[in-house]
């Protein structure tokens, strides 16, 4: 079992604080690192992968500092966000070189395995300069997992992938997590993060704004109003009925769409059906309007 631990980690560039007193541990399973652009996600991943020195605090992989300890890379696979590749290598050569640089016992076999895992076998003998962004991304992932590392760190791994490739990459990461690996990735594809991660770390302006299960984080923010959109046989009558309900903060009927806000998620979902019956209205649809990570983000950023 591998644990990547950050304790009181800060990183500044001159006067600019990129990461500010962050502490958390990442263990087996899939952890998603989320935050708006410029929040310090890449800085944090680079600190964890040992490519940046912490200005304060410690970053350890199973007790060994990752900075200036190249031997930790026997246990880490890293997929950079940057679109960097050797233009003179085919994907197979690139992955095999990575295997050899990691001192893998049977580099050829490991290469074939990694290439098959990312589904690149048909194109593996083509030069990477002719690849699409998604194919290069898969080649980078193959190189990162060719030495079978227990920890995988991926910076925006879904960048440039089409929806089908995204799904297969998600399946791949799930399968690797099921093997007991520690997987940490950053992404701005919020919907997929929500579907993929067991655990979410939310970074805002260099600080760890929240850590834990996404839905639990969402529930914990009790002071945050929940918003629903409704469709019914008579939105106007339903709005009148709902305005009288104690948990409802506001009701809005605009452009034929009924939106309501409540501070009590549970009370509303339990009471909405009887409110509709009292008004003599048929309820067609009740949809939480803001259960996406994007809205959680913007809420955290505003706070």
């Amino acid at each position, binding site marked *: 079992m591998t644990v990547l631990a950050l304790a009181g980690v800060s990183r500044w560039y001159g006067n600019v604080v*990129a990461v500010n007193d962050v502490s958390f541990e990442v263990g087996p399973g899939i952890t998603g690192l989320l935050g708006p652009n410029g929040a310090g*996600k890449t*800085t944090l991943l*680079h600190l964890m992968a040992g490519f940046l020195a912490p200005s304060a605090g410690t970053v350890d992989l199973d007790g060994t500092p990752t900075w200036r300890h190249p031997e930790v890379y026997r246990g880490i696979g890293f997929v950079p*966000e940057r679109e960097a590749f050797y233009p003179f290598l085919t994907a197979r050569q690139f992955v095999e070189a990575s295997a050899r*640089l990691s001192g893998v016992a049977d580099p050829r076999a490991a290469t074939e395995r990694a290439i098959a895992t990312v589904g690149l076998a048909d194109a593996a003998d083509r030069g990477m300069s002719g690849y699409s962004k998604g194919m290069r991304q898969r080649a980078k992932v193959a*190189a990162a997992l060719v030495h079978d590392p227990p920890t995988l760190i991926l910076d925006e791994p879904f960048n440039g992938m089409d929806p089908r490739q995204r799904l297969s990459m998600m399946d791949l990461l799930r399968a690797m997590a099921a093997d007991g690996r520690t997987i940490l990735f950053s992404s701005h594809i919020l919907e997929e993060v929500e579907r993929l991660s067991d655990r979410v770390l939310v970074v805002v302006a260099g600080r760890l704004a929240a850590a834990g299960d996404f839905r639990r984080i969402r529930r914990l923010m009790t002071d945050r109003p929940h918003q629903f959109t409704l469709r019914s046989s008579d939105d106007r009558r339903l709005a009148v009925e709902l305005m009288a309900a104690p948990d409802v903060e506001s009701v809005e009927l605009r452009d034929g769409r009924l939106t309501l806000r409540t501070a009590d998620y549970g009370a509303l979902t339990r009471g909405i059906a009887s409110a509709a019956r009292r008004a003599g209205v048929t309820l067609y649809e009740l949809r939480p309007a803001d259960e996406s990570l994007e809205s959680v983000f913007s809420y955290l950023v505003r706070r």
Partner: protein
Amino acid sequence: MTAALVSLTFRALLNRRRTLLLAALGGLLVLVAGIFRLGDPSTAEATRFTGRLAADFGLAVLLPLVTVIVGTAAVGSELDDGTIVYLLARPLPRWLIVLVKLAVTWLVATLLVAVPILIGGLVGTAGDSEIGIGYAVAAALGALEYAAVFLALSLVTSRALVVGLAYVVVWEGVVAGLFAGTRIVSVRQHALAVGDAIVGEGAVSAELALSVALLIGGAVVVLATALAIRRLTMVELRGETG
């Protein structure tokens, strides 16, 4: 692991179009020696001309030009295009990366400079091997010193090519010509001293004693390599977006 690093470095250096251009410059040296030979010169003339060609073009132009381009690219281009991450994310000691890069750079520079000088020397003097061998050995040793300096330079500044060229043109070309005392820290003068010691009656008489040149040159190689290792250990990768 080391073999993979060697092969990757070789491919990266040899796949650049610049390297082919540099090989063409080496070919030019051989071509000039051959054209000179066609004029059927006397032995003394041939020795003088070929010696000047090897020293003034081979050691003074070709050698620094090749080493500054190849030496600053060995690590510098990987830092520029971001592929350095694929080496840094592997369990390779940083000193090994630097030593392999240095060795490969040295070998490539020797192939591109010392070999044309050797062939040019043989062609120009119709088989008298002394000049060719003397200046080829000088070029090979000079290539090691230049390579170590320019490799370290590429880890100190992102404008290593410009700074390196400025060193070659301004310091070695102008300052060392005006102030004799500065020649002690001129790689070209170190190489010339070696060539002169082997050729004996050299076409260009060296300003430094062989022992001084070897001692200073050796110290420069060791110090520059140590600096390069230290700098690579401290290299940090920053994100593009934060």
